[in-house]
């Protein structure tokens, strides 16, 4: 039996449409997350990360 026959009979095409919907939702979610005002400070400090090789910008715990 050829691979293409197996694939033909598996009835998988519905997953394609499901995937497209999930994709659009996920991408919209990311855009929302990126532009959420609450995250602005996070981006600010993350952007500094390459500039200091020695000191973490966001250590996992830090008393401020």
């Amino acid at each position: 039996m050829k691979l293409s026959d197996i694939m033909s009979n598996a009835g998988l095409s519905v997953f394609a449409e499901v995937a497209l919907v999930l994709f659009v939702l996920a991408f919209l979610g990311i855009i929302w997350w990126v532009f959420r005002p609450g995250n602005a400070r996070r981006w600010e400090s993350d952007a500094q990360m390459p500039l200091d090789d020695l000191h973490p910008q966001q250590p996992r715990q830090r008393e401020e």
Partner: protein
Amino acid sequence: MADSASTGTVQDGTGVIMEEFSYDDAIVRKFLFATVIWGTVGMLVGLLIALQMADPRFNLGLSFTSFGRLRPLHTNAVIFAFAGNAFFCGAYYSTQRLLKARMFSDALSKFHFWGWQAIIVAAAVTLPLGLTQAKEYAELEWPIDLAIAVVWVAFAINFIGTMIRRRERHLYVAIWFYIASIVTVAVLHIFNNLSVPAGAFKSYSLYAGVQDAFMQWWYGHNAVAFFLTTPFLGLMYYFMPKAAGGPVFSYRLSILHFWSLVFLYIWAGPHHLHYTALPEWASTVGMLFSVMLWAPSWGGMINGLLTLRGAWQKVVDDPILKFFVVGITAYGMSTFEGPMLSIKSVNALAHYTDWIIAHVHTGALGWNGFMTFGMIYWLLPRIFQTKLFSKKLAELHFWIGTFGIILYVVAIYSAGVTQGLMWRAFDATGRLTYPDFVETVTRLIPMYWTRVAGGSLFIVGMLLFSYNILRTWQSRPARYDVPVVKAPRLTPVHREDGPKAAPIAGLLPAAVHRSWERKPILFTVLTALTVIVASLFEIIPTFLIKSNVPTIASVTPYTPLELYGRDIYIREGCVNCHSQMIRPLRYETERYGEYSKPGESVYEHPFLWGSRRIGPDLAREGGKYPNLWHVRHFANPQEIAANSIMPSYPQFATTPIPWAVIPKRVDAMAMLGVPYGEAINNAEAMARTQAAAIAADIEASGGPAGLEDREIVAIIAYMQRLGRDISAPTAVALVGDGEQP
């Protein structure tokens, strides 16, 4: 640099536990040398094949230095050896610093390094020997593919392990680009290379025809995306702020840039197959996602260039920034051109021409090359702990390299457009203006010489670069200083987490602790899912063979001799210069005959549609010329067409056919579902009968005698079969000389 006086784990005044560690820069140095050495080798091979196109005598008359075998060596060397090692070099340097952690395992780092170099050596040996899968950028045969998978997994484990052990709470965007690259390349590599072995270094793709073409360009396009684009964007987002001395223009944009690429790139592959037998809906999807890629890509370019805001005066006397500026600009140019070329009507002109080669070299020389040069010039004083030997030489390298790129790219653009227009030109009587293909090649020769000049300049720059590196390395200290870095230990809580977060680390349940550690894994899994699901969305429908590949009753499998002839075609890399895919466009069908149908490729494991017409299309070559014509033409193409640039293959008439391998090849094909029937038990006898018939015809028409056990009859059998099934009144018999003219 660091406060190397402190020792051991200490607590500072606020009770924060500090850990001490150091970065592994030895591995960075190793990858740096590999980048430069393989880069030089790969570019020199490129120069040789550029010379071969300007004058076929540069094929040197040897089978393993002919264009068809060296072209894959050039592409593999610059992609996987030069750009690959450059990515690893920069990634090992930046990852450790961005995560504030040494690599997870030094042993895995070394294994990655030596394993990768061994793979490159294996490629450099097997490709000139003609051991190839005939799929672009996936030429390497199955044992090497397995080795690539193992080494890549080792790299992935090392990388993810480092992320888990990190001391930086957030993952910087460069790390995201690295993860996406690592995950996606693994997925692409594994799925595109699935094949059935037919010997130690011979295999047939699991997929056939339309499906194989689809898989290949899903792979091929994303190899460009996730091996040459996203890794280097990661490098850009680290090294550009470093060199510019300030954070990236917009971090927000860099995140959008990342997710746009991950979401969009994976769909764009079918734009490599416009107007082919690929279903039109797939072609349209490929085009539209490519068009939508333009703005996010330019967002990345703007982000990179504007990182220099307020620091433009630095560019004047900093060769590193100059390399970055031109590199990022080249990224912008090729990511504008890419979407443009993916538009069907533009693609109709550009496809199969040098325009694509010019496009690729804007990216490879400009983006990958210059980003690598800038990065390495920046790294040199830091990892060799000395001064750069000569900034002036670096400046000279920049100017020579830039001039070389311009010369190369302008010449090859004009070659591409010229040839594309000549192919489609009709005269006043409604006939092709240039019916003789060679005419459209002869016109390009001056541009090919210009390319040789441009490429040579780029290589001169590369040599200056190597010399500068060598001299810098010579002035390294007797012992490298290994600075001790201190950073707070990994604990689960962060103030920003709000009231839920417990202030004292020790009181937290272990599950919360682990959830932080799992985050990079979760991220990796999500990226992988994005890529895989997107791929499935595109790929699954093409495997629904009934709607997408209408079967043609008269199409039958190749005879055993033709199959072996096809293997010779694959071995010699003929597919690098000859397409076998006539598009439904008037100037194509007038020149080559009826356009290619999806159903004609159903037994093509792998597909041999090709992507470039350095020579004419061969999809309907069968029966076009007598057998004797092929004998003479393979022995010396210039005797038939004086201006042809095809290498000669006199060895076909002297190399004996290894009859014993033919049944193995037929068996492997039968395993893939090709209906060979009787031929499985009888392959060798059938092949010998057909070979004798062709040899007799050659002798009868005035050619040499005694060719019945030589490779020439196998390749002629294959040539004479090409494209004939569709017009066959009944199924072509497996045996016999019925299809011989």
